[in-house]
């Protein structure tokens, strides 16, 4: 984090003769954008009636295929898939019941973006984490990197498969529209807005109605903050929203990259040179070629 890209390139150029210098502008993280200005959504589980209108709105806009139940009566996806980018799941406890919406959280510091070798996943300045299949090589590292288990892979196709996940309707935001799912939600359990405004709204709801909510806005700080945030009446772990701490997931990895890569590229050759100069010379060069 502390080492600039230019410093890294300098090191890389020194060490392996510019093999990496052609790498060009390789920056995939969030830049300087203000997370409070990001496009975001607030999902209030206490207001959700589980109608799945959001799931349908998502299908219609993104033209994904329904995943019907065995009798072909209802669209009944069991979990997120290459065809289902968002869905409502039911949590049934002993005495409590809640719905929970599943979809990409559009992290402020996304691990998928940090891990993607070819910048196929990018954090845009408006907030959405987008995907470019022309770049993607299909390595599926993003699926492991994501702490929320969101990116899905199109396993079934014999064509070139893609990584599939919610785009936060980046293609609608461009035209000044809101996300398809939030627009369709009949109970306003899901609302769209600027991240900063939604945080203020959510915190107001908690303070005005402390009995209704768990005193925590999930996604405000979790995993370094997300653009999709949750209010709930039941503990978040029960809804599958794990306690991930507040450190951005890529922090350790990127910090290591910034130290280790230039360190080895510069330190390695220096160390080898020193070893070579101090080690005693053997006479083997003559006895056996190479």
């Amino acid at each position, binding site marked *: 984090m502390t080492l600039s*890209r230019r410093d*890294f390139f300098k090191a890389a150029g020194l*060490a*392996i003769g510019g093999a*990496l210098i052609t*790498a*060009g*502008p*390789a920056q*995939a993280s969030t830049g300087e954008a203000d997370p409070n200005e990001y496009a975001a959504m607030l999902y209030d589980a206490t207001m959700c009636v589980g109608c799945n209108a959001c799931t349908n709105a998502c299908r219609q806009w993104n033209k994904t295929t329904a995943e019907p139940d065995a009798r072909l009566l209802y669209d009944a996806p069991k*979990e997120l*898939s290459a065809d289902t980018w968002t869905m409502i799941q039911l949590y049934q406890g002993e005495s409590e019941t809640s719905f929970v919406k599943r979809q990409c959280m559009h992290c402020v510091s996304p*691990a998928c973006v*940090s*891990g993607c*070798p*070819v*910048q196929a996943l990018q954090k845009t300045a408006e907030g959405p984490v987008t995907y470019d*299949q022309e*770049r*993607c*090589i*299909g390595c*599926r*590292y993003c*699926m*492991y990197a994501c*702490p929320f*288990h969101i990116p*899905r*892979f*199109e*396993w*079934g*196709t*014999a*064509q070139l498969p893609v990584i599939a996940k919610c785009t936060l309707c980046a293609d609608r935001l461009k035209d000044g529209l809101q996300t398809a799912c939030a627009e369709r939600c009949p109970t306003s359990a899901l609302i769209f807005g600027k991240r900063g405004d939604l945080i203020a709204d959510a915190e107001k709801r908690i303070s005005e109605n402390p009995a209704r909510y768990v005193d925590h806005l999930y996604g405000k700080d979790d995993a370094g903050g997300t653009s999709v945030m949750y209010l709930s009446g039941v503990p978040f772990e029960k809804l*599958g929203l*794990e306690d*991930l701490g507040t450190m951005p*997931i890529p922090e*350790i*990895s*990127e910090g*290591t*990259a910034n130290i*280790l*890569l230039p360190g*080895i*590229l510069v330190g*390695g*050759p220096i160390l*080898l*040179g020193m070893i070579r100069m101090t080690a005693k010379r*053997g006479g*083997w060069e003559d*006895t*056996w*070629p*190479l």
Partner: protein
Amino acid sequence: MAALTRSNKNNIPIAFWPLLALTLLGIGLAIYRLVVGLGVSTNMSDHYPWGIWITVDLFLIPVAGAAFTISLLSYFLGREDYHSIIRPAVLAGFLGYCVVGVLLFLDIGRWPQFYNIFVPGYINLHSFLEEVSLCVTLYTLILILEIAPVFLEKWGYTVPIRWIQRGIFVIAGVGIVLSMLHQSSLGSMFLLMSHKLHPLWWTPALPLLFYLQAVYTGLGATAIAVKLIWKAMGLPIDRVLFRRIGQAMSINLMLYAAIKVGDWMGAGEIPLLLKPDAFGFLAWFQFLIGIVLPLAILLSKLVGHTSGPFWAGVFALIGTFIERLVVSWIGLAEPNPVSYVPSFTEVFITIGMIAGGVLVYGAVVRYFKLFPDPEHAHA
């Protein structure tokens, strides 16, 4: 091995036919996988996006690291004892990396655009996977240069051999730096998975642990291969060489053990070790069989016998395999565990590609000069 490396040029070794059959089966299945896609040909799923190929790659890379360890020792630490094993180790490394490359190519879903990892505007230098991809590719090219004299001398091109010999310290040096980078980055790849990988294996020290593991695993693999091949070829085995390999191994094993124990204690993970579950057992097994046992062998008088480093190598490799298996597969927890068993296609593509590597190795042993003449072996 014995059947493969027999120097009788008139007989085709018995092992040739089954290896050829496995290789051809593997190639056929690889084509099948490319035609029908990953969903049909493998058992991977959204719950197990990576399967046996990645695990095998993670294991083969440190084993093939033999080439890097041996060049480091012989070119830079001036250990002439290692000189007789440079060629066999470099060829094994090269073929190992070829197998890794083929398996990775088959594993990526959008294989026709694999070259995107080299496109300057696409490269993400924060991605350790990108870093591994670039370094492994460049390192494979370095290994081609290092092994080229074996072929060039046979075909009578002396000039390029002289160029390579003149530049060997630069070539080997670049290869060593690239190896340091990608062997450690292989561990760094899992730094992003702090919430998924089992805490007994996840640590910020993963790059260092993977690097040390690559060094001792490469040395162990060398000890195993040299003992088997030298025996099969009837070459006298150099005990001094074996003791040196064993000593180098033990230093790296001790460093690994110190960091591993330090991490477990520092992170307060000792209770997890005492938990009677599969992970507690695996962690103990890996530590005792893969670290303590080889160390005990190497620190005893056995290090002076060729079987000492040989068996230390065997146990170290078992330990490395367990670590790579846990880190890339069973230790990556999922909220709703769905079982994954590799499909026939996945298993036999893996076996086929390795068989192909062994086959090529055997052919090079047979038709080119990979091993020193007996009078040079005991320098």
